């Protein structure tokens, strides 16, 4: 079977089960694009390559499959970089295919030549420059395997133009990959597992810190069984939301910098931390010297480099979380921790009383209440993408999730502009599901051009813009920690409704709490994409995300929500 390199690309994508790719063509990748339609793989034409990578990432997170982004050489490839780094930091499996100048001129600074394998070396799990068309099929196969196995991550394949054009006898690569040094881990060391079981069986105040690894190893069911058997409450990281149902009585909610106070209190008071597939990010631990001082610690992770990297632990188990939990479950005794749970619930009630969504409206439109209203209206069943900043934290705090793979958010890199393209990827993965993007006025303007993609692809996406007229999260830091000097954070914004209407997307503007429910209802019943601009409170305590652990403070040193009494002042 004679095939060109370009045909092999599509042939292999098909064999890897790819149904859709995101990209923008250009000189050095045109050969690849040319035969696409013969292979029945859909191409989503984005408006900026960064968003091809973000959309592929969103697609991957929503579907549990590998997302694919395609770009031309030079500027097309460099535009991917932020998207690749975002995927790397959050261990999201994507494969990026870039065009490259012909091999004969590599190194000559040819037109649109850039060393993209060099540039992406530290932000990919692995990357390739293809130098022989006979290697291409195998490389693509290996790339998909590396992207999705072990600790997943982005893989980039750079294909020079002459390789795309060259013909060869296409032989499908064998299933088995040839990677002598690459072995994703399986179950944990039985001795370490036994030690962990001993600690668990002796604990009075245990707490599970569930991380992204729960979703990636498919440990949702077994985690639930484990939590119930040992009656252990579960705190979530931002990226593990959906990995444990937030409606479950043992669910605590998000931990860390913007976690609820009672969750962080529980961590500080626990006598046993069970860190399952998480990596003790500084946004989660606060000041390390004062982190969970009363606890023994068990850490399960599939990446040896994460064990004892930040927090020294009593038992470190290297292994796949699902398999380790399968080993652990029979070794742990059914337990009851009534006293501990009651204590946590008392703290929880205290937090609830201060919660802004439990207070009567004062006539002003508050972002948490907007998110809460959308959560209620959708019955918590929507797939949610967020941008970065206050909008992200409000979405995480008030949109409670019960199912895995329903939150797309940039955790590790905190990439503004991620929300809209990630939502596009999620909606492409689930055309029939309700997808909401929560974005801020700052980040939205970083990737807003993708509204055209939404329309061209006829995606029924819902977009909630939380417009506070500020780079809100930075403004909040300025208020708390920088003498209230609001340096370069105020935004003079366009008329968003008119702007979005210009793309052909039906839009609503909401400025009061009374309009909220109706606009949400109308947007939900609208058949096509829908956009609501919520002009939310901009400043002061109503414009801030509470609670908050200041950077560098201990977890229990939180800035709490102002109490209603203080508010009436």
């Amino acid at each position: 079977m004679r095939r060109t390199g370009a045909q092999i690309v599509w042939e292999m994508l098909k064999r890897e089960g790819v149904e859709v790719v995101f990209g923008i063509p250009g000189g050095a990748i045109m050969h690849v694009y040319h035969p696409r339609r013969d292979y029945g793989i859909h191409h989503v034409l984005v408006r900026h390559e960064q968003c091809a990578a973000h959309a592929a990432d969103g697609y991957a997170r929503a579907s549990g499959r590998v997302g694919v982004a395609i770009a031309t050489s030079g500027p097309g490839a460099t535009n991917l970089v932020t998207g690749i780094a975002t995927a790397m930091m959050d261990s999201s499996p994507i494969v990026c295919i870039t065009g490259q100048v012909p091999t004969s001129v590599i190194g000559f600074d040819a037109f649109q030549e850039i060393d993209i394998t060099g540039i992406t070396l530290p932000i990919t799990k692995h990357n390739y420059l293809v130098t022989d068309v006979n290697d291409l099929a195998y490389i693509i196969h290996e790339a998909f395997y590396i992207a999705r196995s072990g600790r997943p991550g982005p893989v980039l394949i750079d294909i020079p133009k002459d390789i795309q054009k060259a013909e060869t006898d296409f032989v499908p690569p064998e299933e088995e990959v040839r990677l002598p040094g690459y072995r994703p881990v399986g179950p944990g060391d039985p001795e370490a597992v036994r030690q962990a079981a001993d600690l668990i069986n002796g604990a009075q105040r245990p707490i599970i810190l569930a991380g992204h690894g729960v979703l990636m190893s498919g440990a949702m069911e077994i985690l639930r069984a484990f939590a119930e058997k040992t009656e252990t409450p579960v705190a979530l990281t931002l990226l593990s939301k959906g990995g444990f149902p937030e409606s479950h009585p043992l669910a605590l909610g998000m931990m860390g910098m913007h976690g609820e106070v009672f969750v962080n209190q529980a961590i500080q008071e626990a006598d046993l931390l069970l860190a399952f597939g998480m990596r003790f990010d500084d946004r989660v631990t606060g000041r390390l010297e004062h982190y969970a001082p009363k606890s023994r610690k068990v850490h399960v992770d599939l990446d040896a480099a994460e064990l004892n990297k930040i927090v020294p632990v009593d038992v470190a188990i290297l292994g796949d979380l699902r398999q380790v939990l399968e080993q652990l479950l029979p070794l742990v005794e059914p337990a009851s921790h009534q006293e501990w749970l009651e204590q946590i619930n008392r703290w929880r009630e205290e937090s609830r009383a201060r919660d802004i969504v439990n207070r009567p409206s004062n006539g002003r439109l508050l972002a948490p209440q907007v998110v809460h209203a959308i959560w209620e209206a959708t019955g918590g069943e929507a797939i949610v993408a967020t941008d970065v900043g206050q909008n992200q934290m409000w979405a995480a705090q008030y949109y409670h999730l019960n199912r895995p793979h329903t939150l797309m958010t940039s955790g590790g890199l905190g990439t503004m502009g991620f929300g809209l393209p990630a939502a596009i990827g999620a909606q492409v993965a689930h055309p029939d599901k309700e997808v909401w993007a929560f974005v801020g006025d700052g980040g939205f303007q970083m990737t807003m051009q993708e509204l055209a993609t939404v329309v061209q692809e006829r995606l029924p996406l819902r977009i909630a813009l939380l417009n506070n007229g500020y780079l809100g999260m930075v403004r909040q830091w300025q208020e708390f920690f920088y003498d209230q000097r609001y340096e370069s954070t105020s935004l003079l914004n366009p008329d968003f409704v008119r702007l979005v209407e210009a793309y052909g997307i039906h839009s609503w503007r909401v400025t009061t709490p009374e309009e909220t429910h109706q606009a949400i209802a109308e947007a939900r019943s609208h058949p096509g994409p829908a956009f609501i601009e919520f002009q939310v409170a901009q400043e002061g305590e109503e414009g801030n995300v509470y609670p908050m652990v200041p950077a560098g403070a201990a977890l229990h040193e939180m800035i709490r929500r102002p109490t209603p009494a203080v508010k009436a002042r």
Partner: protein
Amino acid sequence: MKSTLIALVEDKPGVLNRVASLFRRRAFNIESLTVGHTEQPGVSRMTIVVDSARTDVRKVAQNLYKLVNVIQVEDVTERPAVIRDLALIKVRTNGSTRAEVMQIVETFRARVVDVGLETLMVEVTGTEEKIDGLVEVLGSFGIVEMVRTGRVAMVRGSNGNNGKSQYRVKGE
């Protein structure tokens, strides 16, 4: 203290670059790094020396394992091993000092490999301490130029290095 790691890596383009990039990114302090072929085609061997006071050797090994092309990493610091460094040293000499230099070279079991009008080139292999010693003595004559390879190491005994590693990722 100096620690010595031996890493077996796939002999593919860019692998050295990946290792170097990793060390830079994780701010690991590397004293020396040597690369060369092994008895197995397609496999290269790196000897990496780190100052364990400044860099956590376990972290170096664990992070090396994250590179797809790294096959095996072993910390041989505590194992009985032969450790060698090789140096070429060009020493300034004249009629009156030449004999003396030759004698020192002899004492250190080094060799003179080139003779110039005003210099001698000395080749020496051995532990770093031995070479440091020679360099110090020759220094008084004037060292014109010097190059050292950095440490290479091999564990003693009849076993090959394969399949034995303290940091081998468990679970196939």
